[in-house]
């Protein structure tokens, strides 16, 4: 491990970005984008989550391959759960 020490400026920059994105996502939700409201909300949430993971959680700077493998694996299995469950719900009442 012996992580690199990141500058506090970087942290504050990330924090400011996160705050901006929070305001943006709240404001955008009042604009009618049709079905894209949900998409935008989720994309912004994912950007925010990625910033936290990459910088606050140091994944961007780690030399550990396993950390990344674990993250990818967790989201892969989460996706399996969601996708295969929805496979039932979206087709259940098709005639």
């Amino acid at each position, binding site marked *: 491990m012996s992580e690199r020490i990141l500058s506090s400026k970087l942290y504050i920059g990330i924090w400011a970005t996160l705050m901006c994105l929070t305001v943006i*996502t709240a404001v955008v939700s009042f604009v009618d984008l049709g079905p894209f409201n949900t998409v935008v909300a989720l994309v912004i949430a994912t950007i925010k989550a990625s910033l936290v993971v990459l910088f606050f959680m140091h994944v961007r700077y780690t030399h550990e391959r396993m950390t990344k493998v674990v993250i990818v694996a967790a989201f892969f299995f989460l996706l399996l759960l969601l996708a295969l469950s929805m496979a039932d719900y979206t087709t259940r009442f098709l005639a």
Partner: protein
Amino acid sequence: MSDSPIAVETHGPELRHHFADVEQQRDAASLGMWLFLATEVMFFGGMFCAYLVYRYWHFHEFAAGSRSLDIYLGTINTAVLICSSLTVALGVRAAQMGKQKLLVVYLLLTLVFGLTFLGIKGKEWYDKYEEHHIPGASFNADDIVKEYPQIPINQQYEQTFFSMYFAMTGLHALHMIIGVGLFTVLLYLALKGRYSANYYTPIENAGLYWHFVDIVWIYLFPLLYLIDRKPLK
């Protein structure tokens, strides 16, 4: 992969006997923490799955329920959590550099933000109680039905929305409470000068946990509060 020989028998107090060296121990702790977070992803994943299914089935009720939540409190709470994540990150940084006093300050700030979040959450829950939006025998969504006559609302499915709301925010809050407990212990130990630039694994791992709980909220916020805020026609 550390294939280094496990030969060193003499070691400092922070190295447990069965590890070869400090680096192996820290690598192990870090991997363990990330694996734990992976299990947490699946734990919340089960609930996200339920949420997704019911949102797909009962979209109108979810949209109306979402509108009835207080978006100002929700946004403020998101901001509070992001601030707490910043103080955690800075706290870990202080620990890395061995600045013990600074570490204590950041831990304290984190606790303050964490408790603020829980306080606001509590206020929101209390509002739900006042509005009879807590699922159960006294659940009543007449106010929502009246407020949004344009949206067809089934009260039962509305209850499902609030069930998901309470289950998700409740388990998130439980994680926050655990986090606050964790950071209180860290604060105590930091005050006793337990951590140094050589040994700050607990700070780092608790930090990872805190960030994870933050990420869960980053998703919960749009999923619960921002389902459908477009102006009604």
